[in-house]
């Protein structure tokens, strides 16, 4: 078997190692758009927990607060109890359908501009550029042996990244507690352990995802690009190289001008590759690595302007546009492109959920009642022969002020009493005070001497005793022995 191997020595690896990306700085329309979106999204993320919203004396004054300890979710004027979690489900559905809508209308705009992975990677890339210089300086530093300068620059870079990562993780916890209080506790070491753990984990993930892994998250880890490929069609925008204009490309402007044969506009300057944050060559066509951030468009336009050729050699185009252009026809209008059955269907679903939620929010009850019939024992014979049943009545006062409620009974002629008043003071209704934004519960009893079915359906009505009013009902049963004397 020891035949000399005629093949060249194999690389010994069955996978392709990552080629580190050193994106070059670029300026242009889409770069400025990215700046604006980055500032806006980061500002929303960092500042939201610090917004205040006065809710009166009985509720926190933080505008957006997920109060897990007390099981309340506050969002400006909306307060959600755990039993209203369907509003959160609705929001998540809207987010999902909204993403579908955006994808079928403008392609991977989410990936290119608004995804946290993109935004933070972009931020980290800028910090890196500020400390280590632009692409060429970074490449030089990468190849340079370890020396004072390299150590200093790398330390500065990693420290800055770590600081940003820590602030990112740090901002997250403020959504779950009163931000100023938690900030003070956090700095003085008095915050709950879970706060430190959360900050630790998020600092690590931010640092690793934004600083070290970057485009690999998009290409290998994220399921969204795969899902999107199923949602994109010939009407979806994607970054397209106008190969019918660019090809055949020539290496350099000079060669292009001197060439006898017809040449395309592309001078193969590779500016599009140099600026790409995922390190792809857009001229190879649509690919999973393209997050459609448009930076190659900026780079190419710059170059085309400099050499005096028409811009938009690379641009946002749909497949339909590309076909039309290639055949020399007029491009379809943006309105025609945006309004097609799929986008309209997505929009209708999205808007439908939104309207249903708004309607439900506007009409939702702020009083809730649930009745738990005492099951052990189901009924009790009293000394006068009457049969008594017991009920645990829980009243949810979802208003941010204490309220008084009257519990009354429908469907049966019987008096009510609770364990504090006793049967002697039984009455048609029982008044209960519920604290602001709390559940009040009361064990109540009712008894009857009348004969009847072993199981009678009864309704409890809980009515608010203030100017605003409002009521809630709950059905329960009254049970008695089969043979009532």
């Amino acid at each position, binding site marked *: *078997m020891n035949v000399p191997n005629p093949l060249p020595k194999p690389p010994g690896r069955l996978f392709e190692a990552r080629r580190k990306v050193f994106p070059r700085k670029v300026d242009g329309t889409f770069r400025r758009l990215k700046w604006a979106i980055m500032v806006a999204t980061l500002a929303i993320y960092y500042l939201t927990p610090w917004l205040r919203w006065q809710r009166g004396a009985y509720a926190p004054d933080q505008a957006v607060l997920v109060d897990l300890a007390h099981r309340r979710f506050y969002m400006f004027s909306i307060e959600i109890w755990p039993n209203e979690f369907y509003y959160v489900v609705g929001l998540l559905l809207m987010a999902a359908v909204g993403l579908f809508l955006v994808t079928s209308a403008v392609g991977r705009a989410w990936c290119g501009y608004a995804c946290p992975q993109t935004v933070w990677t972009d931020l980290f890339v800028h910090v890196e550029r500020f400390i280590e210089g632009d692409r060429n300086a970074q490449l030089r530093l990468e190849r340079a042996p370890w020396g004072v300068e390299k150590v200093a620059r790398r330390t500065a870079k990693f420290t800055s990244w770590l600081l940003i990562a820590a602030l990112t993780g740090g901002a997250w916890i403020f959504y779950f507690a009163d931000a100023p209080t938690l900030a003070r506790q956090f700095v003085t070491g008095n915050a709950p352990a879970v706060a430190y753990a959360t900050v630790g984990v998020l600092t690590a993930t931010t640092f690793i995802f934004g600083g070290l892994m970057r485009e690999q998250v998009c290409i290998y880890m994220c399921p969204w690009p795969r899902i999107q490929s199923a949602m994109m069609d010939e009407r979806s925008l994607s970054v397209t190289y106008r190969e019918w204009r660019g090809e055949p490309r020539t290496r350099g402007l000079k060669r292009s001008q001197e060439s006898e044969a017809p040449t395309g506009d592309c001078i193969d300057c590779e500016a599009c590759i140099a600026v790409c944050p995922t390190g792809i060559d857009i001229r190879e066509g649509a690919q999973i690595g393209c997050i459609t951030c448009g930076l190659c468009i900026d780079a190419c336009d710059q170059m085309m302007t400099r050499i005096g050729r028409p811009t938009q050699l690379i641009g946002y185009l749909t497949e339909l546009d590309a076909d039309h252009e290639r055949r020399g026809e007029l491009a379809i209008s943006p309105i025609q492109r945006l309004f097609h059955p799929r986008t309209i269907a997505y929009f209708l679903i999205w808007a439908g959920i939104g309207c249903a939620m708004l309607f439900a929010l506007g009409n939702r009850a702020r009083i809730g009642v649930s009745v738990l019939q005492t099951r052990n024992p189901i009924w009790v014979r009293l000394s006068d022969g009457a049969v008594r049943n017991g009920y645990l009545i829980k009243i949810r006062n979802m208003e941010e002020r204490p309220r008084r409620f009257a519990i009354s009974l429908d469907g049966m002629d019987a008096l009510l009493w609770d*364990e504090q008043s006793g049967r002697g003071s039984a009455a048609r209704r029982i008044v209960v005070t519920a604290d602001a934004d709390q559940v009040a519960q009361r064990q109540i009893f009712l008894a009857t001497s009348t004969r009847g079915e072993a199981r009678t359906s009864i309704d409890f009505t809980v009515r608010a005793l203030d100017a605003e009013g409002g009521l809630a009902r709950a059905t329960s049963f009254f049970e008695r022995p089969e043979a009532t004397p």
Partner: protein
Amino acid sequence: MSDEKRVDEATGTETVGHEWDGIEELDTPMPRWWLITLFGTILFAIGYCFAYPSIPLLHSSTAGYLGWTSHGQLDAELAADHARKAPILAAIARTPIERIADDPRLLAAAQEGGKAAFKVNCTQCHGSGAAGAKGYPNLNDDDWLWGGDIKAIHQTLEHGVRYPGDDATRMSQMPAFGRDGILKADKIDDVVSYVRFVSHQEPFNTSARRGKGIFAQNCAACHGAEAKGNRQIGAPNLTDAIWLYGGDRQTITETVTNARYGIMPAWGQRLDPVTVKMLALYVHSLGGGEKLPPADPAK
């Protein structure tokens, strides 16, 4: 089949030397991270054996230098739980029982504690829902042998009923009218008719008419002229709808003939005062609890 080892071209790794139908197996070494994990777990296991009880010996096991035991852990958790409850238990201890209801939170805590203690100590006789059984009172209803206000319930719980070991126990004894020959069988039959009449179970017939006189002579001293009972001595109200042992003719006859002598332990001897207090508050909350009689201004 070839048994010669060779180096695979594509990977540069040696094969194990076997070949089946042209398929060979590479002798790829275990990945370093995998080996490190394996050796790490072995080291951890050795350390664990020293740190924790692990090696079984004849009667016990090695103790482990951390000194951990499951009993010790349980003790620590119980101690932590007791420490957590201590302030509220102290508050219950120092508040007079009739004043606890003034603080709804204290009352709720006491009732919850009483509910838990009830499940351990009382359900054997009174049932898990306190609905009682024959001979064991239903604590949910409004009929109380010895009184249903919070102080009376507390007194009954603390000192028990006819409990031999407690001087302050609730004490009374009904004569065994038949067994001891106080009343003949026919007289007993008549008095039972009368009791069945006052409890609205039978009409006022001739037997009951005869029984009325017998009742006045023999029973009214304890049960009252109107048969409404006497809580001072735990004599039941015979006119209501609730029967501890049964209200049918046969059971009442049996009761009059042999008497009854229900016993409840004095829980003050078995449980700490706070638990007894909490139990009383829980029983009082079951629906039949009565208000305290207004304080006597003379006292």
